[in-house]
């Protein structure tokens, strides 16, 4: 299927971009450094002592899996928020680059449907984001699991959750690139959606702060349509920390994010189909 071919080409292009490679190497070095510098004493399944770069860390003595939950919670937040922001900035250029003069005419003259080009770009970026998130989360989880003897895949689940959130944001970025072919504008749309998504995740708390009436109605209406970025980050952290999560609510949120992404993609395809290049 040509959508997959377009996606694979995007991944090849990303791999050929030196700074992606540099980032991958950087993350690997950080993980290796962290792994070598961290010493954890586990006595009968309890986290007895922790040393980082030779310095003893003030940690409570408790079951190692319980102690690790706080670490994994922090990791999940870093991946969710930090990973999202990084993904927005790093991937902002792919769609504008696709539409650049000389490239888009060539691609459109090939036997590839317009929607396949967009869908392939979208898919390629998602896979890239997923690989990055899983690599970071997986690497850290592996190090901590080896050190503590407590093996869990939950932080990787959290990374998957963050990737679904990124899908929603990138869908909007892709659509914006069709309206204005600019990596800067695409990134700005992504950041704006990221911030407003944090607000949307707290809409039930924030709405009562507004006076009842038009303002509150507008706020509730606008945030109803936005992806709940902060809610998903909290859920990712809860998952990583082995806190029970309402499965139905989570499923609904995930489905909502996925459908939001599809909606943005459909809008982008509509715009793409009628546009001249």
């Amino acid at each position, binding site marked *: 299927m040509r959508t997959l071919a377009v996606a694979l080409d995007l991944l090849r292009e990303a791999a050929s971009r030196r700074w992606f490679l540099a980032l991958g190497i950087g993350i690997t070095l950080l993980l290796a450094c962290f792994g070598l510098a961290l010493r954890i004493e586990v*006595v*009968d*399944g*309890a*986290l*007895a*002592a922790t040393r980082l770069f030779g310095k003893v860390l*003030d940690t*409570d*003595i*408790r*079951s*190692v899996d*319980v*102690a690790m939950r706080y670490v994994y919670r922090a990791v999940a937040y870093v991946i969710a928020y930090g990973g999202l922001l990084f993904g927005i900035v790093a991937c902002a250029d792919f769609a504008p680059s696709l539409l650049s003069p000389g490239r888009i005419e060539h691609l459109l003259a090939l036997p590839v449907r317009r*929607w396949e080009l967009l869908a392939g770009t979208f898919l390629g970026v998602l896979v890239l984001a997923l690989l990055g998130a899983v690599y970071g989360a997986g690497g850290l989880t592996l190090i901590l699991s080896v050190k503590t003897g407590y093996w869990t895949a939950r932080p990787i689940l959290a990374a998957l959750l963050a990737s679904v959130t990124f899908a929603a944001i990138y869908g909007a970025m892709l659509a914006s690139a069709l309206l204005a072919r600019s990596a800067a504008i695409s990134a700005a749309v992504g950041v704006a959606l990221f911030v407003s998504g944090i607000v949307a995740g707290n*809409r*039930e708390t924030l709405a009562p702060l507004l006076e009842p009436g038009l303002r509150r109605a507008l706020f509730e209406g606008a945030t*109803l*349509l936005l*992806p*709940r970025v902060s*809610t998903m980050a909290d859920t990712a952290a809860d998952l990583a920390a082995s*806190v*029970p999560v*309402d499965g139905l*609510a*989570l*499923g*609904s*949120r995930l*489905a*909502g*994010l996925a*459908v*939001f992404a*599809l*909606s*943005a993609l*459909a*809008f982008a*395809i*509509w715009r793409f*189909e*009628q546009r001249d290049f």
Partner: protein
Amino acid sequence: MRRVGWLLAAVILLGVAAWLMARGDRGKGKTAHDNIHFPRPRSRDDQRNARRRTLVLPPSPSATGPAVPQDPLMVALPNTPGGTTIVFEASAMRDSPIGQHMVDCLLGEREARELADAKRDFGVDVLEDVQRVGHSGPVTVVEGDFSEATWGRLAERWTPRPYGSSATLYAEPDRDQTIAVYGGQMVLFGEDAAEIEAAIDRLEGHLPPAPPAIPDWAMYGDVYGVIAVDTLVEFLQKDDDHGLADTFRNAVEQVELHVDTSDDVAIVADVVGPDKEAVGDLGKSLGAALSIARMRAQADGDERLADLLDLARISPRDGRFSLDLALPMDFLRKELGPCKRKDGGRAR
């Protein structure tokens, strides 16, 4: 037309997405641990303690400033270094799950009869009138509202004698038991009459002031006090697979205890000892024991206990450590044994 179809799809999908996300916007439900409150110093406790400082003792000759009001219960309880001093906030515990369980125990047929007798004979409703119960060394003090109580029936069996300006002592002839009624607010129990008399002397200011058995800053929680090391060692020796009892005896000087009973029982114990390293090692051993208990609970399928043991932790600080431990009511009921209500029903 096909192009418009994409726009239509985008709008419809956005609507569906909004609906799905709204469905997922359930308020954050209470987690299993929301009802666990580990006792920590709170201003509410400070205010409660301040309200209780109603006893104004005559100033000592060497005192320079005005007399500071004292808590009469703390004055009555003797200071027994190395011993156990503990206070139960009965009024707070009465409505707690553990309190209800203990009430159910008290409402067993025999116990219910005894409580009814106490009310009939002395005008004291044990479940309503008692506010605090303190124990230190040989003396147990029950503080409450006994203004309506009558002690005539007590005098029929026990030999009364007045003591001090407000107290009456009752001694049981065949047993080493002394009961003292102090004013309308305190009843003291003990085996040693001299200790009971000393408590009354302290209340009336006849003895020089002594440091309270429990300092003000340590009076928080529904149960609080200091546990004697020997008492704890005895408790630990029951199921001691790790030699903890011996380590305790050798390393620990004092264990300060605080308990919250508002829902599942939450315990905080501060452990101090002269040898920082020994105390540190004890903390690690305890941490390991808790971890094993948690694994055992998980293996036995006791999810609630395992869940609460998630919260168990040892926090080492400068050669001492504090232990946080939460115990589910089901576990406590099992340990304390079932109780029957007066009407024959099982305990809650």
